């Protein structure tokens, strides 16, 4: 057990920081500090390409596909320096963190060749078509139909919460390809180009006034017969494998974003005097502790190479960070007082902290609600009996 980094790793840290800071002071200074996922999509696509041009796009990937075969420690370092330099989040994070690893694990050599270089290069932006209006927590109840007709998949249905679909090039969807099935059987995982008449994307305005999510309507949407990952009927297995990638090294970059938010609250508390309030002090200390423990939980999870045993740190990670961040939003508002409820913007737009307060209500919902997480922890982590399905 060792937390420190080696001198070579510290050198690597300096190299990352130097390059990132130079970018944020130079050609890409206009995007520095952006926190909203939806802001400046065009420039951020260019930023993806700039990362790729310098082999910083997917450093953990094999060199063959544009990566650097980076060690865990290097990935940790890059993720931390990336956020520390004020670089905005990856507009292709679904491609890099979910679609890419899924292709690396489950894709055919042809599919890897076709997609991975373009994902790494920032040329193919991906979004995810899993949830449906009737299939939220119960993801396996998807109804979107896929039929193989004349060498093409023809897909009909409706997906929802397709984050960033409006700026994406491709979408991967779980479709029901065997009629008469229900639940996890009979599903197939397809990758579809978005720019086609059969796909219609409509933004969903959120409670913070922003529209990061979408409804995606598929009406005779099409993709070639070889667009499936795995085999027909393998969709559930692939989807579950994909979701496990959500707990990758990118979590450390996400945490650096949380660090920025907490620091902003600390600054506000010092400015408005609430830093002297013992109640606020306790809550800030708890938030600080929670953030540190999140970091070390993530490092435990990432350092755990024994995949055969149940990993409690990994199972509990989602609910831990989501609950922490939701509390952070409430703490932010209590530090700001009523001033947190007004905005200088003319429209319904919010500064980092009030936006955190509003947006974080979704953290405990998307990617598996806290309730679903507790089911998983209890059933997979503690071996308790599974919730029975009903017959409605």
């Amino acid at each position, binding site marked *: 057990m060792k937390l420190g980094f080696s001198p070579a790793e510290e050198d690597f840290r300096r190299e990352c920081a130097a390059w990132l800071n130079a970018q944020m002071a130079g050609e890409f200074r206009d995007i520095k500090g952006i926190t909203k996922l939806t802001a400046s999509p065009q420039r951020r696509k260019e930023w993806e390409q700039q990362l790729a041009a310098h082999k910083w796009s997917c450093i953990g990937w094999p060199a063959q596909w544009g990566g650097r075969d980076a060690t865990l420690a290097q990935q940790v370092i890059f993720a931390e320096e990336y956020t520390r330099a004020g670089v905005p989040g990856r507009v292709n994070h679904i491609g890099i963190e979910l679609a890419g690893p899924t292709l690396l694990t489950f894709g055919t050599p042809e599919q890897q060749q076709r997609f991975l270089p373009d994902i790494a290069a920032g040329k193919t932006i991906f979004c995810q078509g899993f949830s449906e209006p*009737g299939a939220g927590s119960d993801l396996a109840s998807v109804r979107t139909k896929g039929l193989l007709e004349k060498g093409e998949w023809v897909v009909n249905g409706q997906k929802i919460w397709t984050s960033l679909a409006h700026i994406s090039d491709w979408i991967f969807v779980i479709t029901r390809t065997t009629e008469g099935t229900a639940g996890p059987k009979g599903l197939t995982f397809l990758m579809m180009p978005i720019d086609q008449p059969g796909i219609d994307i409509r933004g969903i305005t959120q*409670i913070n006034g922003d529209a990061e999510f979408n409804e995606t309507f598929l009406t005779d949407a099409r993709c070639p017969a070889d667009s499936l990952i795995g085999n027909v009927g393998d969709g559930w297995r692939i989807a579950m494998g994909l979701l496990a990638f959500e707990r990758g090294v990118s979590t450390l970059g996400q945490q650096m974003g949380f660090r920025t938010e907490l620091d902003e609250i600390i600054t506000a508390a010092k400015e408005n005097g609430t830093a002297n309030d013992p*109640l606020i002090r306790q809550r800030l200390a708890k938030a600080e502790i929670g953030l540190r423990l999140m970091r070390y939980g993530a490092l435990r999870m990432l350092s755990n190479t024994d995949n055969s045993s149940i990993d409690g740190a990994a199972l509990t990670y989602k609910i831990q960070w989501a609950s922490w961040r939701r509390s952070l939003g409430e703490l932010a508002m209590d530090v700001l007082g*009523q001033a947190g*409820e007004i905005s200088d913007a003319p429209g319904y*737009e919010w500064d980092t902290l009030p936006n955190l307060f509003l947006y974080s*209500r979704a953290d405990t*919902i998307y990617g598996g609600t806290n*309730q679903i997480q507790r089911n998983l922890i209890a059933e997979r982590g503690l071996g308790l009996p599974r919730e029975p399905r009903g017959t409605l």
Partner: protein
Amino acid sequence: MEFAFTDEQVMIAETARAFFSENATSARTRKAMAADGIDHALWTTFCKELGLSGIGIPEAAGGAGLGLIELAIIAEAAGAQVAALPLLGSLALAAQAIAAGGSPAQHARHLPAILSGETIAAYVHDAALTADGDTITAADSFVAHGVSASLFVVTSNTGAWLVSADAPGVTITAQTTMDQTRPLARVTLTATPAEPLSPAAIAAAHNAGYVAAAAEALGGAQACLDRTVAYSLERVQFGRQIGSFQAYKHRLADMLVEIEQARSAVYWAACAVDEGSDEAAIAVHAAKSFAADTYFRCAGDMIQLHGGIGFTWDHDAHLFFKRARSLQSMLGSGAWHREAIATMLLGEAA
């Protein structure tokens, strides 16, 4: 001793509930949110046709008599719909302040116009207010419905005044506000002519404001629970009504546990003020802090228990959530009210 509604109170509650649920619809509220946060037509109907706007104001001062219990009943019903109305500012804070601290002439000049809805009054507080002869200088960044008001009741910690919105030295700045059903304006008064009220206005405004805010929160919290229960019986996942999952049921049960306490708090406080009980001081602090916290918790749970749909603009959950947050922070935070109670129990902290 009988801690249950009288027949008359039951009738007022039924009337108010029917009125607001029929008229303060989501569509109308959203239209008001896009403007100044007041459904003016609804306010006019409420004041002129329903005959409940004078409740809590003595008949001698032009009101309908009765007291804070009945005012709370109405605020609860309005809160259940997140109605976009100046009830808290104009009727609870301002009108009560004027009724308690105004002369008969001031009553006659202002109360009929407020109770008829022709005048919208708002409440301005500044502990650092300075008075110089007949003028005052003060500022408050968070005046609810300040942009819509033509009259301000202004208080410091020791005095109270009336100020006309078109008086010299008054500036009113609209601000984008999280809860669009009650936008906050910045109001500054610079050597502005002001009519003094007796300081009795301060306590009257606080008592009525705390109770009305708490009652509004109670109504909102109960609505969050009711709507979530209804959704949980409709929505099916895993082949089951989501309301059949025990963890979900227990969370709803916990909401009711809090709400029932908030209900006790609101009507205890209203009753204690109406009866002039010794307990009134502790009761109003308890009611404001407990009910607002309950509302916030229930509104947060409403979003959570609706899942993704509850996070969308089109669903009403965020109206409750933002109103709940604003009720927590306005008129003193929960911690501030609890510290006031601690001081009653323990004395000032050394």
